[in-house]
């Protein structure tokens, strides 16, 4: 499959300090490739360089070294811009315009006119759930609505590649679900989606591949199925009505017991323990088993390990 995004040794230095400006490396020799039709999650803690990378790809920043190509052409090329959508982090637009006027303005920049522009704008606003509010001025929009109109403007040209910087930011749970579904619809129609996030559950449910950035460096990348072994790490049992005598008896047999609210406890078992027998014993002792779940490695675990290892390398510990 052809690469939609090719990033080669991309670095960005910012000068800091007034009297004696010194370079601060925000992104360090990033090399990455994203295939057409892929949903790629670009993950990392705050300040890792995710937004810097996206701005470099959009030519809002110029690289210190390295290069980036999108759809086979240099990033920033006008022909590329016609086929790309971009949602900046915490987007902000023209307060005096309505959502419909803003999207019509942007649609016209893509060469759409008349009825074609009107129907495209109406459809995109419906897609992001702003159909009813399209004639409200943007100054009357809530933060979540501004985020949605930001998504709409990124999709108004029906892009082949879409870059989303923290697309779930400012959205309520319903809005997040809506955006997840939207991203999956984009993937289904063959659009390449490159999104940055530090909400790992979103990345886990959406991405075919992820890259993890820490302190400006790519510390890990690959398919989720390759990154996460999905092997069993143990069992988690939630119980209620656990009296003190039973708890004291169980403690030597289990990995740990943690008190929860409303008299409930979480009991963690080793992976080779027999959860069925344990549940029977609990029931026989009068405790009420609320839930039993296997514990597997999550993207969060992998993220914490990768970012932690990068920080340790940096400090030499």
């Amino acid at each position, binding site marked *: 499959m052809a690469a939609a995004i090719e990033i080669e040794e991309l670095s960005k230095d910012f000068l800091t300090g007034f009297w004696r400006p010194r370079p601060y490396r925000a992104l360090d020799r990033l090399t990455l490739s994203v295939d057409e039709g892929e949903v790629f999650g670009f993950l990392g803690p705050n300040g890792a360089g995710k937004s810097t990378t996206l*701005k470099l790809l959009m030519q809002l920043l110029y690289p210190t070294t390295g290069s980036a190509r999108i759809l086979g052409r240099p990033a920033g090329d006008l022909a590329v*811009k016609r086929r790309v959508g*971009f949602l900046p982090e915490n987007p902000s637009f*023209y307060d*005096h315009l309505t959502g419909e006027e803003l999207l019509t303005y942007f649609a*016209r920049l*893509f060469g759409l006119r008349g009825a074609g522009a009107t129907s495209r704008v109406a459809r995109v606003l419906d897609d992001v759930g702003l159909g009813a509010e399209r004639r409200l001025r943007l100054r009357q929009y809530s933060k979540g609505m501004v985020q949605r109109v930001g998504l709409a*403007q990124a999709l108004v040209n029906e892009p082949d590649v879409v870059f989303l910087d923290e697309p779930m930011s400012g959205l309520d749970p319903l809005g997040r679900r809506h955006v997840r579904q939207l991203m999956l619809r984009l993937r289904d129609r063959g659009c390449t989606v490159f999104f940055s996030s530090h909400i790992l559950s979103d990345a886990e449910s959406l991405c075919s591949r992820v890259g993890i950035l820490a302190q400006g460096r790519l510390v890990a990348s690959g398919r989720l199925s390759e990154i996460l072994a999905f092997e069993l790490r143990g069992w988690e049992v939630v119980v209620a009505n656990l009296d003190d005598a039973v708890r004291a008896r169980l403690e030597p047999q289990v990995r740990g017991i943690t008190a929860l609210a409303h008299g409930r406890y979480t009991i963690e078992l080793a992976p080779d323990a027999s959860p069925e027998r344990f549940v029977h014993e609990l029931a026989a002792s009068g405790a009420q088993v609320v839930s039993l779940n296997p514990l597997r490695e999550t993207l969060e675990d992998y993220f914490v390990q990768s970012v932690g290892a990068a920080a340790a390398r940096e400090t030499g510990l």
Partner: protein
Amino acid sequence: MRAISLVAGAVFKESVRDRVPYSMVGFAVLLIAASYLISQLTAGQDLKIIKDLGLAAISWFGLLIAIFIGIGLVSKEVERRSVYSLLTKPLSRDQFILGKYAGLVFTLVVNLSAMTLALALLLAYMNAVAPPEVKAGWSAPALDPRLLTAVVLTVAELTIVTAIALFFSTFSSPLLSALLTFGLWVAGHFNQDLRNFESVVNAPAVAWIMRGLYYLLPNLAPFNLRAEAVHAVDVPIRDVLLTLAYAACYVAVLLVGAIAIFRRRDFK
């Protein structure tokens, strides 16, 4: 060209929905009307006072519009981060700058046209109600075409001021841009003094620097034909055309400078 006109249209729409230019136009219209009342107190000079105050109001309020909108043209886009979405559309940075400039010039032309129309209506009314013996004492007709020449040159001057404001707006804050633009406007009106500095100071190096500044700073004095229009003094058409050509060249240089700076700019 289409992208430039779309950006220009957006600037105009923003100014239409912004109360600042409207309040300025309203205030200018009021000032012109007030000049009519003042003129009633001055026997025989009423027409000149109306023309003088009217043209001055058009010039001053045009200047305020040019500076206060011009300084925010680029810096406001960067501050509110709307530039991130706009520049990732099929729009080059050059087109962005040219569109912003064209939009503000169009806004100025519309606003100054409204003020000129208000002045013309007032003068037409004066013309209609003045008895023939009063009209006989006027040195020029009420609706003198020289007034239009003065307004056209005021617009040309403001295109330079707008280009200066836009130039500073590409790399500095709105406050600094306003101060620098206003400073250059003031310097531009006293530019002739720099040319003849050697007659004031006996230091060739200083005189040489001042001569350099004379060529560098905008020469705005030739754009002020208000006194000529009020006192019915003819200005050769060649001079007017040369002044307009100077404005076009100066604006072109400033826009090239603004584009060169904006092309290299990083948006952190």
